[in-house]
């Protein structure tokens, strides 16, 4: 039998939510009820507090303590130099000379730099591919535009993992693409388990997140602005970079944010399509927690990543002062 029963806590949550909603509608009808609207945001605020804010505090706590719960900055040192614990152990055993020969372990920093580089590449490729696509989709004269929108949405209805695994069957040694390559006489070749395959998987999965914000901001543009530019002497290309592009900047920034962030943290794509040959930071955090069981170091790595994302977000929002990309005004 399939278990279709509602978990008790979900039932309570839905019940309370419904009650609050009815109460809110009732109070909206009668003005001046003396109850602040913000009160109704309480359940969500509570939810956010328990499941978002609290874990962040816990991550910070773990990152700043050792396995015995004592305050330490060792986890951050391990990020910078993954061998420092080994070196200290050697020193503690009196092997100062041997300790001096242990070089700085740069695996964590390298992985982060590599992840940032991959995310940058993925974002850049998505932008270059996505902008013209969005431009085409938003063009009112193109009858195909609407069809293209649907074509971009349909893959998103499928599960993200499934889509990535589907690429495996395309790229693998006995896969569809290799069969085709052999048929046209180029011969089979290793397509998977390398950087290109990971990048391909990332671009494929995140491209819609670039296309849609740009598409939205382009289709909101008044077509009269393009006409005005042409009227004042711009040809089509100049109109594009003097009017259309600057005015779609909020969409571009939003798209960059939405592609860059999941790209840095992705761990499933490099694992499936990279086969462990290319390690990314999300992958590293996951294995630090699960394989190595080192929650303290894992938390430190997560914290570093969060800070980096926050910094890059605030830089991006500087470029979008109106906050149309979805941010601070």
């Amino acid at each position: 039998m399939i278990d279709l029963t509602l978990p008790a806590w979900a039932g309570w949550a839905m019940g309370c939510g419904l009650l609050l909603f009815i109460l809110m509608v009732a109070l909206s009808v009668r003005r001046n009820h003396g109850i602040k609207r913000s009160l109704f945001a309480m359940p969500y605020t509570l939810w956010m507090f328990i499941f978002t804010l609290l874990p962040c505090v816990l991550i910070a706590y773990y990152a700043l303590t050792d396995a015995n719960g004592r305050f330490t900055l060792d986890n951050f040192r391990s990020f910078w130099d993954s061998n420092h614990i080994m070196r200290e152990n050697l020193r503690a055993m009196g092997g100062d000379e041997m300790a001096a020969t242990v070089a700085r372990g740069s695996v964590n920093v390298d992985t982060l730099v590599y992840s940032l580089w991959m995310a940058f590449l993925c974002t850049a490729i998505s932008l270059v591919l996505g902008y013209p696509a969005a431009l085409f989709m938003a063009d009112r004269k193109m009858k195909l535009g609407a069809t293209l929108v649907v074509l971009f949405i349909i893959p998103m209805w499928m599960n993200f993992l499934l889509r990535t695994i589907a690429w495996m069957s395309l790229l693998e040694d006995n896969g569809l693409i290799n069969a085709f390559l052999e048929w046209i006489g180029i011969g089979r070749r290793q397509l998977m388990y390398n950087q290109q395959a990971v990048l391909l998987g990332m671009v494929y999965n995140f491209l819609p997140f670039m296309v849609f914000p740009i598409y939205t901001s382009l289709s909101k543009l008044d077509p009269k602005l393009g006409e005005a530019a042409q009227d004042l002497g711009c040809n089509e290309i100049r109109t594009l970079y003097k009017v259309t592009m600057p005015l779609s900047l909020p969409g571009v920034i939003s798209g960059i944010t939405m592609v860059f962030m999941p790209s840095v943290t992705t761990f499933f794509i490099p694992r499936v399509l990279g086969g462990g040959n290319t390690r990314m930071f999300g992958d590293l955090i996951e294995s630090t927690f699960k394989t190595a069981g080192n929650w303290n170091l894992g938390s430190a790595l997560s914290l570093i990543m969060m800070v980096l994302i926050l910094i890059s977000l605030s830089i991006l929002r500087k470029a979008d002062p109106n906050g149309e990309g979805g941010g601070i005004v």
Partner: protein
Amino acid sequence: MEEPRMIHLENISKEYDGVTVLDDINLYIRKKEFVTLLGPSGCGKTTTLRIIGGFEYPTTGRVMFEGKDITNLPPYKRRVNTVFQKYALFPHLNVYDNIAFGLKLKKMSRAEISKRVDKMLNLVNMAGYGKRSVDSLSGGQQQRIAIARSLVNEPEVLLLDEPLGALDLKLRKEMQLELKSMQQQLGITFLYVTHDQEEALTMSDTIVVMNAGHILQIGTPKKIYDEPQNAFVANFIGESNIIPGTMIRDELVHFSGVDFPCVDAGFGENVPVDVVVRPEDIVIVGEDIGQLTGTVKSVLFKGVHYEMMIESGDFTWKVHSTSMQPAGSRVGLSIVPFNIHIMHPMKEAAK
């Protein structure tokens, strides 16, 4: 002195998905002329303007510019500029950069651009606003900037698509006069689109009345007002009483059961016609001496005058007069021959 023809539309037709919006339009515009395309919405006046601007291409016909065929030339190669209905100012540029937009494309020196932009800001009474963002301006100010942005390029022809439509009445009237004086000062040809007949009468040298993709009449404001060619024009330009009648012979017309002397001729004898009489041209006289008699049905105070609906026989006349007759009173109506205007009936005119 006759100015040379700037723009000549030859047999322009335009269809959208099989629907005809312009049907065989022929029109020319002379240099320095202020021409207004006037008609109800959907009559094709904006499409005509967009064809001249280069934003639409006609299905058939040619657009001539100083004798050269520009039908298929893109907008940026035409020596015309457009003031758009809702201004279409660039929101990412400030006032100065909006006006300088066209000049910068011409690779002009910065000093020259600055000089010209300042001159334009002065012309439209917006000096000192250069650094402001366009979003911070009121509708009337945005309109001035849009006009300056077009005029700074020194176009041969300025196309204006209901530029004052979004402004309130008082501001609109001020801008009408300003636009007219700008046009005279700069000596630029203006092609103006509006559905406001009063605006058209105030500003234009020539009015082109359009309806349903056709040009119904082209003429000076006075001619269009005094001698409308058919009932549509008479109705659209100002208020009028239009009554079917019969032309008995030259200078004598029969309507409302009475023979009226008039000044029109050349219609033939015993021909059905439409008769137009403007409300202000009907004189209320004593019941015993009027050409017609009637009963006042309603009275409305309109500020300068009273508007009375006076029923005479089976026709109700709209009469404007500064002296009021109370509702229900019997009055006589009199029309001098000069104020009776005879037209071909609408159906015949369409042929």
